[in-house]
């Protein structure tokens, strides 16, 4: 385990760049106990990063929702579909 002196802790406490990186990281992989400690320490004193964390999760949900939902309004035109059908039939005949 690394030895963390007071000065280093102070740096972490004010480092929003690092805190937001950890916030992103922990959404994808588990972060180490040390990182978790650093992040919690930071969040105790930083309202901006608490807001960031909430919004970051919400943005993920929105992006996922947008991409995954069915988009019935996005359709291929019939002409292209006919062309596709012909190509497929042609290939099936050949094989």
């Amino acid at each position, binding site marked *: 385990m690394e030895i963390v002196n007071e000065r280093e802790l102070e*740096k972490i406490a*004010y*480092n*929003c*760049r*690092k805190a*937001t*990186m950890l916030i*992103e*990281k922990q959404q*994808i*992989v588990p972060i180490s106990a040390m990182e978790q400690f650093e992040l919690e320490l930071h969040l105790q004193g930083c309202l*901006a*990063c608490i*807001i*960031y964390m*909430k*919004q*970051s999760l*919400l*943005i*993920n*949900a*929105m*992006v*996922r*929702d*947008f*991409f*995954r939902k*069915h*988009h*019935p309004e*996005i*359709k*291929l035109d019939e002409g*292209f*579909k006919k062309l*596709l*059908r012909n*190509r*497929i*039939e042609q*290939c*099936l005949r050949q*094989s």
Partner: protein
Amino acid sequence: MHGSEKIDDIQEKKKLNPNYWVENYADYLYSYAAVRLYDDELARDLVQETFLAALEAKKGFNGLSTEKTWLTAILKHKIADIYRRRASGLRNNAQRFLQGREEDFFDPDNGHWYSGHDPAEFFCEQPDTIQDKEFQAILQACMKKLPTLWLSVFTMKHVDEEPSAFICKAMGLSSSNFWVIIHRAKVNLRSCLQKNWI
């Protein structure tokens, strides 16, 4: 009999019916590609390529997944190829851009948010935001503003939930570059939303 119905179901899944592909899946595959690529013509071409590749690979279909899942998987690989092609031409630019961007948000000396860039409450209180059409339009516009490489990595991770190792390999990224991109893409996207949604 329930049991025999179930078996029929399973057998149904194992068959491929190329004659019905266009009718059943063309629109679905097209919209899947179109929202990810922001390019309708390219999305159209990929649907065609997917069907043709699927016909070629017909024998390899093992029936463990549904026809739809199988076709979508083929399309996904083709989309990953496009992401890679788009990013490879831009990688150097994007990385230079990466280095310049950070100072826009954080003080390089102490890593603190620059004043004026710190996150403020702007949409969290409204649970309906996700469904809000206007908000979705802004979200899309903000996503389009991200550098191609970032958008590709962001989408592969947060939408398609690809393993990080797969993304790094596909996009030729080191693990540390990957984290930098994941972080900056979100910081930029969030900031863009805050700026435009008030």
